[in-house]
């Protein structure tokens, strides 16, 4: 019988568990000007812009204290947890670094050629001209993991402090004004016990708090609940799995594909596609993205990517090559209707993927995140000049920017693909031709976790790993650079005894082999199973939060160490 994972919600309540008043005695609190959670494009653009503005306003800089800007990043370095396609629109880089030549940007090349293919099992049919949403002419191929490192260095160079290997565990709120964040404990054992290297977290109190956590932001989720900011429609996600390959022949264009190996039948609700981008002369990245509203519990994006690589069209590109990187990340795809009611509350702003500033139809988000970070910096600096914690100017700025305008244009397109590929395609064209006037109204979307799941055989098609072109999940986790200690506490909240359909959904979905059904229960066909969890494998993609569980940040420094994803 089909069962939705949402019927087995994770234990705990984010708004109650992760929102608190400051608890450290006042003299022990760490005081900063801006506490920015997340060292990605949004948070680092915000840090850099703030430091640029403070340079022109030494009075305010002094007022913000010894640490005017602190960026709290759970990865080992800025960029360690970042993964994206990525074709970047250059507008935000130009705005943030007006005097910098693009040759100094951390990019591989400017896109000169686009190609889109519809794949069947054996053939690749070019779509000419490529659909407009896939046109990347003038954009730049980058690695967001490298972009994060680049922006991190610039932020530090400008005088911001990067607190890496630090998780932001709780949001500090007093009388409905955000006061900062509390960092996570370090050195706890599997059962939460304090090990010999235990270090408790600290209250980081700030005049302004910026949540720029990226997809499935831990505190962003808690804040949306606590302040009741949810948008008109629930947020939804896609999961992308990506590999970096060294190849023998350079690739001369940016490639997107649709169709195979996803199944067309509407009952499976499989929506997505692939991307293959050149990274200089000797590397390419290749990834597969699929919506998490699919219904087959045995569907796995990681294995779909492996299957995709066996297609002759892809084999020609990878032939003789070697995989050098792997990773996975969710992408918010709820679009316009899922944007929160507001991006600000007193003392805090939110920007980037965490609040859904992503245009999944055009596969763009990095420049939105950076623009949002820049707008946030401007609004916060303006307000702090007048000793105000009202940052609503940021809200207005986002509402009147390309971020909102673009998302509005594509507001009903993703939903249409839930009714099948060709219907979706038709609606996408209508939206484009009418500049977003069609289709009108607000089309319904629901939570990915509310999709009822069935054991329906997608996994039968997945290839057995040959360790040359196709790989299993565990060796992929290794390629992500993840070497998390095994006795860390479990940071993944899920129910452990669940119906087989729900358990299998998580087992198949998770690209990092975190979830397993015990061998004997795999075989005995029991209706309910006891899930085992290996949290140290987790690469923090966030899919579990979309599909009925909850990812929380592990100890700072844990998780992948992405290099060129």
């Amino acid at each position, binding site marked *: 019988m089909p069962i939705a994972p949402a019927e087995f919600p994770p234990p705990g309540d984010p708004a109650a568990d992760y929102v608190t008043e400051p608890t450290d005695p006042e003299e022990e609190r760490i005081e900063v000007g801006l506490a920015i959670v997340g060292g990605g494009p949004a948070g680092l653009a915000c840090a850099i812009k703030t430091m640029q503005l403070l340079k022109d306003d030494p009075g305010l800089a002094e007022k913000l204290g010894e640490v005017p800007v602190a960026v709290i990043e759970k990865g080992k370095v800025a960029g360690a947890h970042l993964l994206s396609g990525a074709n970047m629109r250059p507008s935000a880089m130009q705005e943030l670094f007006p005097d910098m030549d693009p040759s100094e940007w951390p990019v591989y090349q400017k896109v000169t050629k686009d190609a889109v293919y519809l794949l069947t099992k054996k053939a690749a049919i070019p779509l000419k001209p490529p659909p407009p949403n896939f046109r990347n002419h003038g954009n730049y191929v980058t690695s967001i993991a490298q972009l994060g490192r680049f922006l991190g260095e610039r932020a530090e160079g400008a005088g911001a402090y990067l607190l890496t290997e630090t998780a932001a565990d709780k949001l500090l709120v007093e009388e409905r004004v955000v006061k900062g964040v509390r960092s996570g404990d370090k050195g706890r054992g599997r059962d939460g016990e304090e090990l010999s290297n235990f270090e408790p977290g600290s209250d980081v109190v700030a005049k302004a708090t910026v949540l720029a956590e990226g997809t499935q932001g831990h505190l962003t989720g808690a804040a949306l609940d606590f302040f009741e900011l949810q948008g008109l429609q629930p947020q939804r996600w896609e999961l992308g799995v990506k590999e970096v390959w060294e190849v023998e022949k350079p690739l001369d264009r940016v490639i997107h594909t649709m169709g195979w190996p996803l199944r067309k039948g509407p009952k499976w609700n499989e929506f997505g596609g692939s991307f293959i981008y050149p990274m200089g002369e000797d590397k390419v990245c290749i990834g597969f993205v699929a919506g998490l509203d699919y219904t087959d519990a045995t569907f796995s994006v990681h294995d779909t990517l492996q299957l995709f690589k066996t297609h002759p069209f892809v084999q020609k590109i990878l032939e003789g090559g070697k995989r050098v990187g792997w990773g996975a990340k969710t992408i918010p795809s709820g679009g316009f209707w899922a944007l929160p009611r507001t991006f600000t509350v007193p003392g805090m702003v939110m920007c980037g993927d965490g609040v859904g500033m992503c245009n999944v139809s055009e596969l763009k988000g990095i420049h939105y995140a950076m623009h949002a970070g820049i707008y946030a910096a401007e609004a916060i600096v303006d307000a702090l000049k007048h000793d105000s914690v009202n940052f609503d100017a940021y809200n207005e700025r986002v509402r009147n920017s390309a971020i909102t305008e673009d998302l509005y244009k594509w507001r009903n397109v993703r939903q249409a693909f839930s009714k099948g590929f060709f219907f979706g395609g038709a609606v996408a064209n209508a939206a484009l031709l009418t500049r977003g006037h069609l289709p009108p109204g607000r089309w319904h979307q629901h939570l990915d976790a509310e999709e009822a799941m069935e054991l329906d055989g997608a996994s039968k098609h997945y290839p*057995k790993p040959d*360790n040359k072109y196709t790989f299993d999940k*565990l*060796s992929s*986790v*290794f390629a992500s650079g993840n*070497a*998390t*200690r*095994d*006795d860390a506490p479990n940071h993944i909240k899920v129910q452990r005894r669940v119906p087989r359909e729900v358990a299998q959904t998580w087992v198949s979905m998770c690209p990092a082999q975190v979830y397993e059904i015990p061998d004997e229960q795999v075989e005995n066909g029991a209706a309910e199973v006891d899930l085992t969890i*290996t949290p*140290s494998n987790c690469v923090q993609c966030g899919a579990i939060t979309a599909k009925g569980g909850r990812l929380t940040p592990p100890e700072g420094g844990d998780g992948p160490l992405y290099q060129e994803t």
Partner: protein
Amino acid sequence: MAGGILVYALHDDEGNFNKNSLGAISEAAKLASELGTEASAVVVGDLSDEGAAGLGAYGAKRVFRAKDAPEGLAQPIVDVMAKVISDEGFSYALFGGGLLGFEIGAGLTARLNAGVTMEVTDVKVADGKLVAERPVLQDSAIVDVGYVGEPGIIIGRLNAFDTNEGDGGSAEVVDVDVELSEWSTKARMVTRGEQRGADVNIEDAEILVGGGRGLGEADNFKLAEELADALGGAVAATRAVVDAGWYPYAAQIGQTGKTVAPKLYLAAGISGAIQHKVGMQSSENILAINKDPNAPIFEFSDLGVVGDLHKIVPKLTEAVKAKKGS
């Protein structure tokens, strides 16, 4: 004539002696007879007369017992041994290996201004003196270390010395009163715990039997232990079984565990995920037993056996024992 050899013998709360300590006494007794002197032992804490005297079976002539010094802490034992060595004129102190022995040996060296050799794998007699053999340069060469003065401190590598239970003679027990140094009483023993497998340093073992999920359950690790015993090796484990609580973390091989390079790595029921492979791939010889012919471990094994380890391993243990017995 040289003075005797003094050995520190570690015991647990039940009075059982550590295997490496017994090995050190056996070795000391053998060397002492070549030198024409005697081997004696030091024990501390709560230990019965019979328990102490029982060390005679391994060749200890006298056992010096300091009841007031706590067991398991290095500094008080340094006080005891320094006094016994000075009072009784011992020429050498020998330790069986393990962290406590290293710590006591180092402290004793500093206290007595002695010479010390660590990680000793063998000791021999030359010209009426002891010479310690010690591997260097990542075990690619062995050097002989002699002592120019007295006493000489020799700290063995784990499992360097075999125990040799002799004719059951009983040692003379001598109680000693030692005034502990002021700093020796600053730390106190709260609890002592023993962990299965923890007395074996898998990084040093020449033969390792690695157990994986294919063993089926925690109890089946005894198959691996019996085989390791028969081969004179130690037991290692994969992350999955350590995670499942089947075996202690100290035995974990791989990316988040230890890196080993034994002469023989026998993988029983290990699939060979890359996280495990990086911890043992430089083993000289890799032998894998797995029922799944497609297990990745076979890709980097020198010898692969496809079959049921529950049948193969006990037979292999028997065969090894039979061969060694012959």
